[in-house]
């Protein structure tokens, strides 16, 4: 055999980008939230948004805490229960931070209006000068002039003013023209770039993704730990789609019906992933935030495919890129499938 083991392992790097519209394509997609401040100063947030593990409950609680100037431990969030919460729409289209986040922010703003009016009289400070932070309401330029959040809440109640707010938001858009598909179907777009580095064993066709660098413009990372988690998870789901996963149906019958024949990435398939957050402030987003759930995955299979092409000099045009396809491509003189014509 010519050469050593190292000649059998080809290293390659590939890049892919994403521009992803947040929310539904050229359609209304509203979400609503209710917020109530209780007499002990705790805050109840009722939002329709379903947290399916991506972390929206945490993000929405952060947005409520920040808007009302209270601590996270003061916020109690209830979501996705039709007996209590208003409609939040689907947890899809990377939309809940942006859409439900705005709904929660707007509901809190309604309450802030009342709190500000009462605080203005209580403290004798113009409400424009008030700051809400750390459970205190104070004069921005003279913080010693302040009232505790809980005290203000009770003052409101004593005046017969209950602190309830509701908010809803739907992203602004211009519908797509049905003839030419032109329009402004989204207000906010999230952007990202991923670079993957792979090692291809040209004897076996096996691919190992060694490293991935992923940078995302999410507008504002409400919770950077959550953003990283979404991107790291998106990268590996993309690797599964690029290299391993395929539902096989024969004559209508699903053949891949067990974990032994439908392969999911394990921790041994996980590359060293490095996530970088870019913040660009989306003016219509809550605190400038957009979304990341789907953009996290979108470029991952493409980055891996381009890295493989860089390693072996052949673009495989069909996912998943299995060892069999790599070996077949390496063995055939040209990889053209012979049908590069209009479908």
């Amino acid at each position, binding site marked *: 055999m010519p050469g050593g083991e190292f000649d059998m392992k080809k290293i390659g790097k590939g890049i892919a980008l994403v521009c992803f519209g947040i929310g539904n394509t050229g359609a209304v997609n509203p979400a609503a939230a209710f917020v109530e401040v209780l007499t002990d100063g705790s805050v109840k947030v009722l939002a329709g948004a379903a947290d399916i593990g991506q972390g929206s409950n945490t993000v929405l609680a952060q947005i409520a805490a920040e808007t009302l100037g209270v601590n996270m431990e003061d916020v109690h969030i209830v979501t996705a229960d039709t007996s209590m919460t208003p409609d939040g729409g689907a947890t899809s289209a990377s939309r809940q931070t942006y859409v439900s986040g705005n709904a929660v922010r707007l509901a809190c703003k309604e309450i802030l209006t009342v709190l500000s009016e009462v605080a203005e009289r209580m403290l004798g400070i113009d409400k424009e000068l008030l700051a809400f932070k750390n459970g205190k309401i104070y004069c921005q330029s003279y913080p010693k002039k302040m009232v505790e959040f809980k005290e203000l809440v009770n003052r409101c109640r004593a005046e017969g003013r209950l602190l309830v707010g509701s908010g809803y938001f739907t992203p602004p858009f211009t519908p797509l023209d049905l003839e030419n598909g032109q329009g402004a179907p989204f207000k906010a777009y999230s952007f990202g770039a991923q*670079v993957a580095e792979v090692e291809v064993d040209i004897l076996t066709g096996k691919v190992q993704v060694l490293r991935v660098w992923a940078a995302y413009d999410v507008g504002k990372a409400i919770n950077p730990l*959550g953003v990283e988690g979404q991107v790291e998870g998106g990268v590996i789901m993309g690797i599964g789609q690029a290299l391993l996963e395929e539902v096989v149906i024969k004559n209508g019958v*699903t053949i891949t019906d067990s974990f032994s024949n439908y392969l999911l990435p394990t921790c041994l398939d996980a590359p060293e992933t490095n996530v970088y957050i870019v913040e660009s402030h989306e003016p219509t987003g809550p605190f400038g935030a957009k979304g990341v759930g789907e953009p996290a995955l979108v470029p991952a299979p493409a980055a891996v495919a381009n890295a493989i092409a860089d390693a072996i000099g052949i673009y495989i045009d069909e996912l998943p890129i299995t060892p069999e396809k790599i070996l077949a491509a390496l063995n055939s003189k040209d990889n053209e499938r012979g049908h590069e014509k209009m479908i």
Partner: protein
Amino acid sequence: MPDFKVRFWVNEKPVAVETSPSRFLIDVLREELGLTGTKKSCGEGECGACTVLLNGEAVPSCIIPVGRVEGKYVTTIEGISQGESTNPIQEAFIEAGAVQCGYCTPGMILSATALLNKNPHPTRQEVKQALSGNICRCTGYKKIIDAVLLAAEKVSREGSSDQSGYNYLVGARIPRVDSSPKATGKAVYAGDINFPGMIYAAVLRSEHPHALITGVDTSCAQKMNDVEAVMTAANIPGRNLFGLIIKDQPVLAHDKVRYVGDAVALVAARTPAAANEAISQIKVSYQELPVLFNPIEAMAEGQVKIHESGNILLHRRLCKGDVTQGFSEADIVYEKRYSTQRVAHCPLEWEAGVALPTLDGGVEVYVSTQNPHYDRSEIAACLNLRESKVIVRQTVTGGGFGVKLDISVQCHLALLALKTRKPVKMVYSFEDHMKVSTKRHPIEMYYKMGAKRDGRIVAAEIKLISDTGAYASYGPSVVNRVVSHCTGAYSIPNIKVDSYGVYTNNTPSGAMRGFGVPQVTFACESHIDALGRQLGIDPIQMRLINALAPGRDTSTGQVLTESVGLQEAIKAVCEAAKWSPTDAGR
């Protein structure tokens, strides 16, 4: 009937359970001992969600017959949480952000516990090896591995954590508000819910990909012991069609079936086994129809119609500038066909729910879902109830990735609960998830692009054909979204796109993380990479030349003005990966 008493230790307490010795440990833990922190997923010992410690070793409890644990020590997630508080390993998982949907978390924590007991200072590679039998679909594993290494530090420090009342607001790296119940096994997922007098549902599904139903005979099933209800399409009080965008999918098929997995009849019975037995006794006669599995064939003239409206679900177009003119100006034109596969979502928690009748004649449904308000509208229409009489409560959801945007157990459970006036439960198996639930759209993609010698892409012509399977589901959203996203993150002056969604007799394709965009991005990015290579232009340079930026317009003619951090993102990854546009090594 119980014929055997198994004695063993669970979480340092002795237990004696009367049961068959061949029953799996997980079922004894969950059903007899109420320890629902141990999660059920693949049922084949492959995914690790059900991991417990058996005499200190991490084992999958879903394949261990309880007879084999006689006299042994079993530790579950409940046993390593000291009372209400978390131990250092659980704290490390919470702090590191290693908990997302939480369904794999108890198993991960137990595998980590077994490792750290043996090897208090593992390397990153040793952690990976120890966790290689535990699948996680959410996190990408990085934060889980970080958590185990952090736990090793915490254990060796033996100090209590310095959680100084977290005052984290917007922009702070904050542990999830729901991670503590998930890390201690206390979070209640749909499959963990039990009510007194609860019965179990099963669904008879079509074995034919395309056939007319000529008769359904439920008489044998009706008479069986323990059977509480048998229902067919004839028993549906309201609308027997659902679908978020187009109502084209039957709750129970009545005239024809369009894929292997179409629901035909329902049974509710006192045990899951009795429900399944009754399902096997229902006889359905079919008259088979011609089948279509290839969308390109299905969209041709003269084929059998899967739906009366025809086999093309949707055709969307985009036309920007003048592609003919654009190609005539190009120095190079490159065309190629790409295709992508059908992918399964595989959240570790499969579809599940419990429905109960309410006192006002309505119904209450606990379900693992991504959109309870949509579920409510479908249940109300199906049961002919006012929406205000239907309550849908999302249970802690073990991932979704799009599959739980669709109706799975919701209408079936609500129908049976109203009919029997009892709580009814159904939990999908992995096989159900694979055969019945929606999948990612496979897409056939034709790409043609023209570029100038300097790398500027001047024209793109793209045709996309998506296999939407037997029903629309979120197909229209996919067909629609890929039109505007198939030229990726690039500003190209002349574009023509035709995007088709086509019905076939395959499993329905629906929403999956990205709505078709990962597929078209594979094609678009491969194409631009290859185009650059032919022009002798570095991949990074090729992208910087064509990428969207403030002042440039998208494929829909939308000029982007603000919050466009793409060029910064490209620069950030290239710098980190030490890949500069002038890299000559390529």
